């Protein structure tokens, strides 16, 4: 099975029903996407599939027919993406375990809604659980990133 993750090609030999999350984490060593619930209820495993946010814990790897982007593919500590930069400036993370998924979900949101309203944010982000409840700062960081893009 061939996969394209963060622009890199991988060949894996796994069961077709193995969720993408465990292929990423245990077969390929890509550990930004996190295991939180295994049933698509928390969003910690969110990755982009052809630009769309999906729950890697509930997506059989055989259904992955498009390039995958994980949080690592968006930016690095030395060269963060604009969304990651906003996350850093607002110091969103507490335990941080959900933030890989939050950052990926927010990145997808801003692609669809460059100037998201509170309602847009609620709709796009409410599937991403944060047990530390950093929601106000997540909202603020999304708005900061959107504002920057608008100003160019």
């Amino acid at each position, binding site marked *: 099975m061939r996969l394209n993750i963060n622009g890199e090609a991988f060949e894996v030999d796994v069961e077709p029903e193995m969720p993408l999350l465990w292929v990423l984490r245990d077969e390929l060593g890509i550990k930004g996407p996190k295991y939180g619930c295994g049933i698509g209820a928390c969003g910690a495993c969110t990755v982009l599939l052809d630009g769309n946010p999906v729950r890697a814990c509930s997506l059989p790897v055989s259904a992955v027919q498009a390039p995958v982007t994980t949080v690592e593919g968006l930016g690095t500590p030395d060269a963060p993406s604009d969304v990651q930069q906003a996350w850093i400036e607002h110091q969103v993370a507490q335990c941080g375990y959900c933030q890989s998924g939050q950052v990926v979900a927010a990145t997808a949101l801003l692609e669809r809604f460059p100037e998201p309203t509170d309602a847009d944010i*609620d709709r796009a982000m409410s599937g991403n659980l944060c047990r530390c409840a950093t929601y106000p700062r997540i909202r603020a960081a999304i708005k900061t990133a959107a504002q920057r893009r608008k100003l160019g």
Partner: protein
Amino acid sequence: MGKIAKITRRTLLVGAVAVTGGFAVGYYLYKRDPGNPLADNLPEGSETLNPYLRIDSDGVTIITPRTECGQGVHTALAALVAEELDLAWDAIRVEAGPPSVAYYNGKVLAEGLPFAAIDSSWSAERARGFGDVLGKLLGMQMTGGSSSVPDAYDKMRRAGAAAREMLLSAAAERSGQSRQSLTTRDGHVILADGSRLSYTELAQEAARIEPPADPKLKAPAQWRYLGKPMQRVDTAAKATGTAEYGIDVERAGMRYAAVVTNPAIGSAGTLVDDAAARERRGVLDVVPISGGAAIIADNTWRALQAAGALRFDWAPAEYPADTDAMFAAVADAFDGSSDSQLRDDGDVEDALGDTPLEAEYRLPYLAHAPLEPMTATVHLQPDRLDIWTASQVPLQARKSAADLTDLDEGRIHVHTLMAGGSFGRRLEDDYIKQAIEIAIAQPGVPIKMTWSREHDMTHDFCRPLSIARGRGAVAGNDITAFDLGVAAPSVTCSQAGRAGLPFAGPDVMIVAGAWDQPYAIPNYRVTGYHTPGLAPVSSWRSVGASVNGFFHDCFMDELLVAASVDAVEGRIAHLNDAPSRAVIEAVADMSSWGGALRDGHARGVGFCLSFGVPCATVIEVSKQGERVRIEHAWVAADVGTVLDPDNVDAQLSGGTLFGLGHAMFGEITFADAAITQTNYHTFRSLRHNEAPPVTTRALENQSEIRGIGEPAVPPAAPALANAIFAATGQRIRELPFAKSIRFAIRS
């Protein structure tokens, strides 16, 4: 502090754990310097000047020996050293460090002592000193009880200041210049001529200098970092998916393990059939463990899938089968003898009269459910055992490993990683012991054990369920009698049992957040009742105050309504602690309490003093048809000294929303002796579209510095209950609120 210091049973926790006749030995152990654990395994080219720092060619590494669970402790502790040592903030590196008695927590027992946090009497201070001794004897390198900052505030500033003086002396010796002419800045000693010597190049000479006995600390006015917003040391890693949590550990040749144990928590299990599991792809072995079995596989998912194919005989539960029976047992406890009566002012029975106002409240079990499930990686080799995990009690984990393996503690290496949340769950080492058992069965192979979410939720040691019964009386605008009885399982008893420590009770935690509230009510009594024999329980963010904050403040609200007095004014009038009054005044000011509200909107206030921090919360709700929507939260707390205003805001906001979310939706129930909720769809948490904006304010009116990881949790739920009452007239006395009303999302 008036009558609050009138304690009837001073032996309490201290007396129960003290080793009779062994105190002289204990005192000797306490005074003996536990040494510098960094000196044992110092890498080539490194120096250490004290247990909190290591210097090598790359600069200074600060040891922050508390576990980062999201509360910002690595940043706060690093700042204490960096401030005094004059390090450049962007050059700071932190490490959790090895487990060691050197890193004992002398403050963590304070909340378990029978003295209110605001009691500064001689007896209370002496008992706190005793807690310090016990903490060390018990090897409490513990992260918890909102105690990390109070414990480290002097210790780690002194460590930084002492190291700075040693480096200055080394620079004076080398340069031949007088020490008085030298200064420090950004990891360097600055000589009189302006030239610079880096700490790195001075480290070897500094290590030979006797540490100063009493290093001079900076005055707060000189602080560069403390008191100002800090850039967290872990924030860039956490925004880019590169922070390493326990679940992310990778070792060469590592195998993956999943576990199945008795759904009746703590009971035995016998594996009867593993044939189907062994046939599955990737399954390498099945090994029996305490209470069940583990699957070893070449991939976590394969292990988790195969776990479902194991068959067991389960031993029966050692507690009642369902929640109704458990609540019945808790209610029965009121008919037995009391566990504690730490407050009994005036003549309560007489003051209650013939027609007291009465109310009964009930709170459910709650799961910790941190987003990262329990996980540990263990590698047993002939002469050593390595454990990689996120534990709030690394010394306890090491001790457990020594017991299980017969290895000397010196051969057991605990590597502490970032925790994906905890809320108290990682104060338990059950999951670590399990991973060690598996590793013992697979010698030479690193084993990463990961719990499924379902296993994690159904094998939690929950926040106890609890019942409170209030009776009170008012005269005019005053509360004349306040009598609260609280019945619950004992967290301390349950935890002590698992840790093999003697505990004779009473347990202050059953009444913490109620008996110790700083109100002056002439006839005032708080009685605790212990319900033994229920499912095991544990510390859950804010512990006793997470239940008693609700009970005490809701009943206070009911009495103030009966006394026809404003909720803010009434609380202020009855408080006899100035910092506590000030937080309520602050939150009233922030929310423009008493001002005009939009139609259908109403507010409630909640107050609780926990972990020495008075904290007040105002919640505004609106009626949306039959539903209620939370519009805004305001929260004010007094931490004595604010080290990082940005992190205090984060913890006040997060703690408030954490408290609200669990009060709205959170409930763990039992059926057939097993936890019913298995995942986040049935153990609901607050979501983006339910979280109101939160406005915070930190005050500094009290003299002691306090921790802020927990105190915002207790007042959130009563503030919401009181707001719902103000909006609807419905007095909800049983949580979660969602059993009684429906909430509207924000948009």
